[in-house]
């Protein structure tokens, strides 16, 4: 099966006041149609930046210096904004991290859903309104008729995240980038939202690039996973294999540093500083090699 998203050897620098920081150092990964692909790493690993490049929302200071991003068979790395926008909605969509700031506080929930439908699918007001109600019911919001008339501040965090999921799936996109979609939620709400994402994803046959720092979440929702550290892919494979038999020492260290309530005897082992130094040295060596080449 050919991949819906195919990232090959992606390099990206952030250029700010004459300083150039290497963020992505040759990232390769592919997301197959209908799969949930986890992109896992600690803060600063570059995982969010990969998602932003895919969506075309990387900051202006970010420069792609090499490699390619192919979506649905077409090259999108350096696509102009206008062409890029036509991919959004029915092609690509985002489930953002923060349900508190990702909705427009001054507009009603219903309008924020119908906007997407009218813009990307060219629906009329009546049809979009009906579809918005149906979408809210799909994400298990009762009283959808009332919610469409409410403003974001009137909803709880979990409700807002459901609205964002409804918006992401509104145009049945081929690929959704979910950027830490449950990090801001309480655990009991997180479990429901994960289930909801999975349910919607299976019904719509959408592929998801699931960006997260949480190996627990990866274990529960992802089919395959790519482990990122300092902008480099250290390991990738089926989620079960990576979780149960991690190959790379860094993945193993992350697993050991993750607390679990069911194993009181195990003391947490912080990621060994020697390993971090080694990985940073390897990244630096990679940079030198690339600069020389």
């Amino acid at each position, binding site marked *: 099966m050919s991949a819906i998203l195919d990232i090959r050897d992606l390099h990206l620098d952030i250029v700010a006041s004459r300083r150039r920081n290497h963020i992505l150092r040759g990232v390769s990964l592919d997301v197959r149609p209908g799969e949930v692909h986890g992109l896992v790493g600690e803060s600063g690993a570059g995982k969010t930046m990969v998602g932003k490049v895919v969506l075309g929302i990387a900051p202006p200071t970010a420069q792609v210096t090499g490699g390619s991003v192919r979506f649905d068979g077409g090259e999108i790395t350096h696509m102009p904004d206008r062409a890029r926008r036509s991919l959004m909605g029915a092609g690509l969509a985002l489930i953002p991290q923060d349900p508190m700031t990702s909705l427009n506080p001054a507009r009603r929930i219903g309008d924020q859903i119908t906007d997407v439908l009218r813009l990307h699918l060219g629906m009329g007001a009546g049809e979009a*309104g009906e579809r918005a109600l149906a979408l809210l019911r799909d994400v298990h919001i*009762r009283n959808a008729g009332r919610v469409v008339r409410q403003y974001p501040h009137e909803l709880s965090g979990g409700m807002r995240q459901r609205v964002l999921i409804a918006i992401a799936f509104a145009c049945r996109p081929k690929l959704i980038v979910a950027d830490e979609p449950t990090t801001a939620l309480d655990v009991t709400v997180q479990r429901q939202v994960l*289930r909801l994402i999975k349910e919607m994803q299976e019904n719509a046959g959408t592929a998801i690039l699931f960006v997260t*720092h949480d*190996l627990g979440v990866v274990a529960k929702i992802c089919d395959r996973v790519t482990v990122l550290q300092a902008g480099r892919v250290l390991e990738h494979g089926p989620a079960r294999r990576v979780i*149960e038999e991690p190959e790379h020492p860094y993945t193993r260290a992350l697993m050991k*540093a993750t607390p679990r309530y069911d194993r009181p005897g195990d003391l947490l082992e*912080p990621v060994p500083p020697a390993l971090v130094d080694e990985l940073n040295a390897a990244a630096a060596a990679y940079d030198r090699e690339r600069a020389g080449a």
Partner: protein
Amino acid sequence: MLEAEDLRLSLPDYSRKPLFGPPPLVDILKGVDVSVMPGEALGIVGESGSGKTTLGRTLVRLYKPTGGRIRLGGRDITDLDEPALRPLRPRFQMIFQDPQSSLNPRRTIREIVAQPLHVYGMITDRAAARRRVDELLERVSLTAAHADRYPHELSGGQRQRVGIARAIALEPTLVVADEIVSGLDVSSQAQILALLRELRADMGLALIFISHDLSVIRTVCDRVMVMLDGQAVESGSCAQIFAEPKHAYTRRLLDAIPLPDVDPDWLRTASIVETGEDLRMNIKGSIALVTGANRGIGEAFVAELLERGVAKIYTAARDPSSLTASEKVVPVKLDVTIPGEVEAAAKQCGDVTLLINNAGCNFNAPLFAEDAMANARTEIEVNYLGTLSMIRAFAPVLEANGGGCIVNMLSIIGRVNLPALGSYSASKAAEYSMTQGVRAQLAGQGTLVVGVMPGTVDTRMTPGGETKPPEVATAALDAVEAGQEDVYPGGMAQGVSQGLAADAKAVEKEFAAYLPE
């Protein structure tokens, strides 16, 4: 060491402040008992809004409780004022959740850590302060090189170490740590947790560790207390609670933690709670009151209610002789514009759970007709004031009977003004706004408030209207049973309501065509 009994705290809730008058009080802590032995680590777990952070802050007397007692080392500190607390403060310290905002961005790390030493006069000589700060930084695995930097130059994990160094500077016997690892990566988190364990062992520190994460609590704490909605639902030793949680909520919290094990059932067995308040009502077995029950839509309501198995209906009309009693139907004399009659009805019908405000009038007469003034007055009196007075009288009745439901018969003309029907439009518009207000006010007591906005209905008021009365009654009662708040029976009303949502201006233009000649 620290003991708190029946701790209560209420704060004013400004989000629900009425336009005039003081805001209502909301209970954040509803009687919590806490005790910590010297050297012990107590975990407090809960989700957002459970009151765990407030509890932590109340225990160190950053807040003054509105009830209960706090004793620290045998001394009652519940009512001490700040000067009296001050000499005690070095003994109990707090580490805050977000080191980014709890560390002064304009001070160096050295200044931040030294500040409590100076404030409490522990150290007066500069060289000694320097040595002590170096010692403290080393204790939390930072180096002297960090001392002259500013908070923004450090990583999140390093900043949290500074927070810890500052908290232990005065050698406290108790530290309250509020979500101190929640923003950190697992690798920094593991380091901070290891550091806390060491400090406890070295300093004999008692620790209150507040977190939303039971896995983290398990690695540092001896005992755990589970908070829900301002109360402790369960507390006990970690060994006992993690092995055999007694409370269903504790179980749910544990089940919700995604352990890093591949387990497809974990998602499959998660139940998705339908969100949004559930105000659905079962009409079968309910007791209804229908105003204006002697004709038109009122009559249709009575028939449909009986059809759906209502237990009893009070049928109200100005002239009860036009109503027939039966086994389930009790006629009531009621003119909604007469306050005495409304009050009497609320007393007589004290068991009502479903109030249908159907009484209304529309004279549909020319504006310059002789009786136009009187007609307009009656329309406002009956449609708006009558409905409002019924709701005011029956809201306590519904509350006493467990919430119930109010159905207001409005009109689409309440949303799109017809100039030639000015007073009728106005009365219905006022009723529409009032319905929304009542809905908000009564949501707290669990009352569903349904607004029904049909187009023209085939009744005496508008003969030949496109919608038949039974259709309206059916749509309204369906809404009651579905917990839906606004219904627009009839094609025209539906069209208008959708149009209004999309482009209100266009609807008004379109609607002009419906104006009577």
